[in-house]
């Protein structure tokens, strides 16, 4: 497999892997918690890297994901103390964990040489450098297969728990009456999100991963009224964004993840404006028809008299 094809496939797979759980993240209103997770996993990744020495290792991915879970559980604890107002609990824990990570990076913790720039936005091309060879044949970047595995895991989790996830998202109290362990399910789901964030770190870094997770699903939400449609649209938008982001980065010689983030944002605005315009036109036409009907009835009733 050629290197460039490997990078393109990696971009698409990473986008898709992040976007699928993103649907429930958006619907459950957890976007900013995921932002916290994506910052908080940095110290976990660095400690893991110092121990394992490989960013793609499953041990590192699971271990660092636990740091991300600290944000979820910490947020729940702070909210339950009742001492803090509004969304402040979500903004209190992750900066400290991120600060620890940045301190480690800048002090060359255990001689882990990680560029702060890469820590923020990753490097898709660098992530695709190491190839996987089977029987002497290069079958694409090794990292691609890590992401493919995670894609299967995410799709599998969503498929198996789709009913429970749906009920807990749209009718939480009803779910509790049914005996669904909402809290356990939420923690498991957020752990999976955390795993996804860590796995994608190599390619898209700590800050822009939230774009891949949230924006395709939010764009799909604008124009869908059914969950199945939203999933299909999310997947399509994720892939389009990955291809467009790769192409923009290639032409401008710049970072893939940043280009993807900007493209997703612009696409969201375009879809939002188009959707509003379409709604307005439809409403106007509806009103026109209505007013014509009323005038017709008036004319008719006048002629009867």
């Amino acid at each position, binding site marked *: 497999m050629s290197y460039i094809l490997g990078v393109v496939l990696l971009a698409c797979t990473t986008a898709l892997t992040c976007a699928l759980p993103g649907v429930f993240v958006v619907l459950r209103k957890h976007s900013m918690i995921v932002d916290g997770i994506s910052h908080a996993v940095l110290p976990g990744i660095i400690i893991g890297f110092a121990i394992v020495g490989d960013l793609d290792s499953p041990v590192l991915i699971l271990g660092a994901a636990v740091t991300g879970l600290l944000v979820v559980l910490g947020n729940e604890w702070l909210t339950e103390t009742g001492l803090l107002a509004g969304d402040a609990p979500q903004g209190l824990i992750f900066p400290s964990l991120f600060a620890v990570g940045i301190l480690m990076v800048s002090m060359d913790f255990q001689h882990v040489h990680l560029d702060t720039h890469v820590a923020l936005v990753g490097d898709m091309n660098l992530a695709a450098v190491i190839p996987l060879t089977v029987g002497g044949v290069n079958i694409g970047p090794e990292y691609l297969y890590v992401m493919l595995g995670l894609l299967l895991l995410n799709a599998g989790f969503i498929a198996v728990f789709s009913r429970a996830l749906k009920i807990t998202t749209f009718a939480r109290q009803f779910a509790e009456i049914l005996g669904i362990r909402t809290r356990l399910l939420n923690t498991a789901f957020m752990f999976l999100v955390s795993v996804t964030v860590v796995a994608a770190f190599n390619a898209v870094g700590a800050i822009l991963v939230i774009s891949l997770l949230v924006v395709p699903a939010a764009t799909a939400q604008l124009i869908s009224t059914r969950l199945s449609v939203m999933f299909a649209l999310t997947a399509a938008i994720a892939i389009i964004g990955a291809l467009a982001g790769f192409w923009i980065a290639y032409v401008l010689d710049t970072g893939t993840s940043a280009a993807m983030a900007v493209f997703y*944002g612009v696409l969201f605005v375009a879809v939002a404006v188009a959707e509003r315009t379409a709604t307005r036109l439809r409403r106007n036409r509806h009103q026109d028809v209505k007013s014509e009907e009323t005038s017709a009835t008036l004319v008719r009733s006048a002629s009867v008299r």
Partner: protein
Amino acid sequence: MVPKLSWLRLDSHHMDPVEFFSNHIFRMVFLGTTVIGLVAGALGAFAYLRKQSLISDVIGHAALPGALLAFLAAVTMFGVNGRSMLLLVIGAVITGTLAALFANTIAARTKVAIDTAMAISMTTFFGFGMLLLRFITNNPFPGKGGIQDYLFGNAASITRADLTTSIAVGALAMGLMVVFWKEFTLRSFDPVLSTMLGFKARIIDTLMFTTIVIAIVIGVKAVGFVLMVAFVVTPPAAARQWTNTLPGMVMLSGLIGGLGSGFGAYLSISLGNVPTGPVIVLVLFAILLFSLLASPKRSVVITALRRMRARRALKQELISEGSTR
């Protein structure tokens, strides 16, 4: 394997306060970060009471492209120093405000919820900022060295002019807060009454967010954009545990922000070559934890004790009631 702690060079760079304050650069760092912490803490109190603390995260990330555009405009069009604090602040205030408005518009006009709207706004602006950063580092612009410091700050780069600018701009934001104190208070606690009394909600909101944006962007040189959220969210959350009045909260929050930042800056320098922003964030977090655990009226410990006592009293009452029957 025994982990080597060579990165934690605690003793080798330790210095005493006298040595610290006799150094011009260190004095600049200390004063600069104290001003930033004070302004961000005081104005963050209003964001906290509006229950919109996280908007500061959006503003912080979105300030990056503004600061970089200001740099580009300065070196290509005006031929002046691209790292001038005033230009940087103006650019950052513009994109920071735009991002906050963008997030609020999405939440108001589409079915996308506010948290997702904030995430969309933040990543789009920050992604654009990272494209600009790459563009600047790839091309030969004068004075681009150290421009990566906008991300995590480098307190040692604060000059006297920067300090003057941050004090002036910070004072402007604090002045606006004092002048519009009544409007800000009413809008925070009773938005409906405030509109009924004839205060224009849009104007007050814009003013209030502008002051918060200013508080965030003056921190760029010392702290960087990525961690400024902690300067706006943490001091008010800590201050709230000790006071029940608005003036008390704004003052205490500013005090916690200012003292915490000054102490953090001192630590970061005496520990050696350590970035200032992250150290201050950890100091502020420690103050928050202390407040949550130890404040006399509201803390977690006191609440738990009170609950235990009430439970015991109730048990006693029930037992004595049962024995009299």
